[in-house]
């Protein structure tokens, strides 16, 4: 228990969790009357971007000297962020009358988490927010001309049955989770 508390503190988990709840509640409050897949995407992005700040420790070299099964712990941290972000969106949308399909929320949460983790792996935990935010910022302005490129770029806004979008999200999630779980954030 003591270990978990220290880990949480060193990875900014309390601040990240508070920010995740605040971001989710804030965007939901702004968009509650026009709740659709765009606000869902923005809410998930905001939540995951602020939660991703703790994806690397203060001193990765020091972490490495500890004889602990890090991959399990890293994976648990990721799973916690994903569940918290997705769960918070699922919870707040029950407060209003409009709801978005649960499969869209799961797909977007998984893909965005994968993006955040990829950024954290490449550039360090403090930059984990950059990739999800960048991709989400571009997505609403992509014009759907029916091409595969536009479906891949706008995967977050595709309807729930879209195979292209599901595969894109899945690829990002698996690639991100695998690299981070195995290697951790950048030193």
């Amino acid at each position, binding site marked *: 228990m003591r270990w978990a508390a220290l880990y949480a503190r060193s990875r900014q988990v309390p601040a990240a969790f508070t*920010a995740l709840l605040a971001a989710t509640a804030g965007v939901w409050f702004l968009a509650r009357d026009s709740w659709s897949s765009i606000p869902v995407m*923005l809410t998930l992005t905001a939540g995951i971007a602020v939660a991703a700040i*703790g994806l690397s420790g203060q001193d990765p070299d020091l972490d490495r000297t500890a004889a602990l099964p890090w991959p399990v712990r890293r994976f648990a941290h990721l799973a916690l962020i994903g569940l918290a972000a997705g769960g918070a969106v699922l919870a707040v949308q029950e407060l209003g009358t409009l709801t978005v399909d649960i499969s869209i929320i799961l797909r977007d949460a998984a893909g965005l988490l994968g993006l955040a983790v990829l950024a954290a792996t490449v550039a360090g935990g403090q*930059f984990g927010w950059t990739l999800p*935010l960048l991709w989400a910022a571009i997505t609403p302005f992509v014009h759907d*001309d029916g091409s595969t490129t*536009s479906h891949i770029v706008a995967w977050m806004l595709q309807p729930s049955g879209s195979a292209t979008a599901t595969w894109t999200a899945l690829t990002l999630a698996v690639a991100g989770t695998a690299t981070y779980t195995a290697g951790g954030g950048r030193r």
Partner: protein
Amino acid sequence: MILRIELRRSIAPWAGLALLVVALGFLFLLSGPWWKVPAPWTAHTTTTALWLRFLLVFLWPIAVGAGAIQGMRDSRSGMVELLATTSRPGWHRAVRLAGAVGALSALGFLLVFGVGLVEVLGHGGFVSARFLPVVLVGLLAVVAGSWVGLAVGRLLPHPLTAPALAVLTLVVSILAWTSLEGAALSMPYSRFGLLAPALGQPRGALVTTAGSVDLGQTVWFAGLAVTGFLVLAANSARARLLGLLPVVAGAAIALPVFPASAGGLLVPDGVAAQKVCDGPICVSRAHEDRLAALGVPGREALAMLAKLPGAPTRIEEQLAPDSFTTAPARDPGVVHLDFQRDEDLLTGDATELRLAVLAGAGLPSCLPPSRGDVADVGARMIAAAYFTGELKLLPEYGAKWVGRQSGPIEGAWAKFRSLPPEVQFDRVVALRQTLLTCQGDPLDTLVPGAVR
């Protein structure tokens, strides 16, 4: 010397590179309205600049976020106390840092415009200096955004600051953008939308931002930039509070200057939309080459129309930007040709130009361009065929779609042609009345009961 080190060692090169790569990737990898009529970004330098301002909806959060990351550098590396022992005033360092980050972010933005300029030249588009205010306000906004990011990052050096600030900027940018984008979304227009730098889609190649928009945004972003710099350089709470004055003053001056309605955002471009006339025929300067092509067929068509009562006597290019929701403007004395939307017309030969003038006996459709209608286009095709004697597809937007269901129109034309000449004439006069008032079914006016 220090500036050179800051240029190399700070986040500045990455900020500029991110703006450049994201913008060019977006423009070149995706096909969207920026490649298509009525406002391709390669047709006119002002249109290029307007599309760049559209991109700021996601480029601005990048500039702000990059500034925030850089602003935290001192405290993250634990050297604030060391720097406090130096004898030089704080703003000496702030000038170098802000200069490096601002200049390279601005350079990234400017390079995107440079690529656009090369594209315009390569596509033989229209070049004039009218893009300057649009680009300069965009540059000022990028600099102001990165300086505000630096200031916030320095004030609040917490890992949450950069993502929170970037998310906040993105949400504000998108909200502001939706209030300017008009009928596309349900948000009403608000002057506050102009406090973010992103503009809606241009929807026309002959427009530019109104002077009041440029002026207000220049004052506002200058105030924002000065505040960002002062807060970055200040060392006491009092100096920081005083540093907020410019941004408050900027907002107080800018908000009353901004146009009161969305209609005042874009105005005809003073150079590109200038009328060039040859007798009764006028086109815009951007499409000046059309004047020679239109001379003979235009006069021929006007002579054919002249036998109608109250016939049009002039041909003019339609200069206003496109609207998806309202029908084109109509005028009994003038035939309007839309070279912006109808690409076929822009490259059309004499026959096609003559056909375009004769379509609908000189009057446009009563429907908004996004809604095609067999009755509407069919009636205007038959009216043109009445003068030329041959039923042909009109050189205009949506003609290919109508071409696929031309069966009923050909049937109606056959019926119309079998009528006595006086009846045909009366029906065409009646059609002009229908299209002028937009009341009644146009095809039914020509051939009652033609399409059921």
